């Protein structure tokens, strides 16, 4: 590692913020800023220019989606690893669609957390089994509510992508999946990343279409 990776920690819980910052510093990261509020976080990020933001999904002032949108405007190319203490539900899915690149439960172990940060920094996506279930569910929902034949049509997963996501949801590690499907670790990682990419692209297209329909273009 030539220059230390710049990390920002956003969480409304001071104890958590401190603990996470300490761990990150000990692991060789440069914690450039911390914040307990979403709006403030976006302002600080504009000046601190972090590479990775470790973001708590539930902030007191604004939603995770709004923070992610703000971060992407202020710091293009920033990677967002989301953490949440509560279950993996609609708000997690919304944040991922808005552009977060990783998701982890707060109860994950220290090693798992540091691994997730380094993978996020490297540009990989970090999936939990729960998130894989949500993403698969979302693709199926889109397939039902937006039947093919419509203009852009619903985004679809390839058979391989579906297969990989199902195995992630069943709790297999990338290594186990690679073994089972006779693929390289990198290919498994790419398949997972593609599924998220399709979902995020669809989300942007939807937002644009909505804006045009509402005459906001």
């Amino acid at each position, binding site marked *: 590692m030539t220059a230390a990776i710049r990390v920002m920690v956003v969480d409304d819980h001071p104890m958590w913020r401190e603990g996470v910052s300490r761990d990150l510093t000990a692991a060789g990261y440069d914690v450039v800023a911390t914040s307990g509020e979403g709006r403030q976080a976006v302002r600080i990020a504009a000046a601190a220019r972090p590479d990775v933001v470790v973001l708590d999904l539930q902030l007191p002032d604004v939603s995770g989606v709004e923070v992610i949108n703000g971060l992407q405007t202020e710091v293009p190319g920033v990677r967002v690893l989301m953490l949440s203490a509560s279950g993996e539900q609609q708000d997690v899915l919304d944040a991922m669609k808005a552009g977060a690149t990783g998701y982890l439960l707060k109860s994950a172990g220290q090693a798992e957390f540091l691994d997730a940060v380094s993978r996020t920094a490297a540009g990989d996506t970090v999936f939990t089994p729960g998130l894989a279930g949500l993403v698969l569910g979302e693709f199926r929902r889109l397939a039902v509510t937006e039947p093919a034949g419509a203009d852009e049509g619903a985004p679809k997963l390839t058979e391989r992508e579906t297969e990989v996501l*199902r195995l992630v949801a069943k709790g297999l590690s990338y290594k186990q999946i690679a073994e089972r499907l006779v693929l390289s670790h990198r290919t498994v990682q790419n398949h997972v990343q593609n599924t998220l990419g399709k979902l995020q692209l669809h989300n942007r297209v939807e937002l644009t279409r909505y804006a045009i329909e509402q005459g906001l273009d």
Partner: protein
Amino acid sequence: MPDARNSGLEAPLWRAIAVYRIAALTYATILVIGNISYYKRPMLAWPVLAVMAAWTVFTTYAYADPARRRAPLLLTDMAVVMAALTASIEIVGRHSLETGRPTLAVAWHVAPVLCCAVRFGRRGGIAAALVMGATDLLVRAHYDQSALTGSVLMLLAAIAVGYLVRIAEVAQERLERAVELEAATRERERLARDIHDSVLQVLALVKRRGAGLDGEAGELARLAGEQEAALRTLVGGRQAAVDPVGDELDLMALLHPYATADVTVSGPAGAVPLPAHAARELRAAVAAALDNVARHCDPGTKVYLFVEDDPGQVVVTVRDDGCGIEPDRLAQAEAQGRLGVAQSIRGRIGDLGGEVRIVSAPGQGTEVEMSVPRVPIS
């Protein structure tokens, strides 16, 4: 019940009866003035009217107090009004009554009947209406249609009022229950927020800091992690959706409570509605599979519960990261009927027209895949 009786819904009824009594007294006074020349003893009509007026004033105040709306007052009310009605025989006179002159009470005697209906419901109202109606008919001493019509109308009014009161009571009870439920829900949400902001975060932090440590610290961290997962499930809010929607149940809401530090539950963000019976059977099959893992694998084995909602079928997979079984051993055990759990799972899913696939390999854990068709085969 007593609360419902003193409720805000009943008070207006008592006020309405008081207004009715005053209006009926005014009407009676007008008719007495108009008919007085036909009376047998006209001079006595005034004292009776005075008594009626006094009684009207008294009852207006007496019934205003919920504590006094009891049998003694109601029975006295009936008696006083019946006495005023009966006095018509002597004052108006038989002849005038038989030729169709009204009684001194005219319609004033309906008031206590309505009181009984409000206080004792439909049955009390009917009883009072029959007694008062019989007295009215006896006083009039002629039984033509117009005389009967008055009593029948009084009976119908008593029934209607009694029914109205019953409806008001039920509505009041429902309202109170809804208010209670709402308060409980709001309290639960507040608790969930508080727990989320404090306890959950600290537990997660403890688990994080201690993970990987040996001995007591590691054990404490593990315990904190378990409690964190349990609390998270509790305040997650999914439970609220367990109530059946029509005859369907949300499978996700049924399965979410199984999430612990070692059991991960994943599936779509929205509800996975299934016929209630199928959903319960699937839950029982999942519980059996989890139980099987707990019995045969090392403690701390991770389990993944995965729900897929396809248009044609619902697939639930229970996969453990623990001891895989050699495929031929599994088949062997099953063939010998020793795999009780597997059979109970197969039985339940088979009854729903579904299939069970058990995949197991050493080092990759065991995977139980249960698929149930969305449209039951008839």
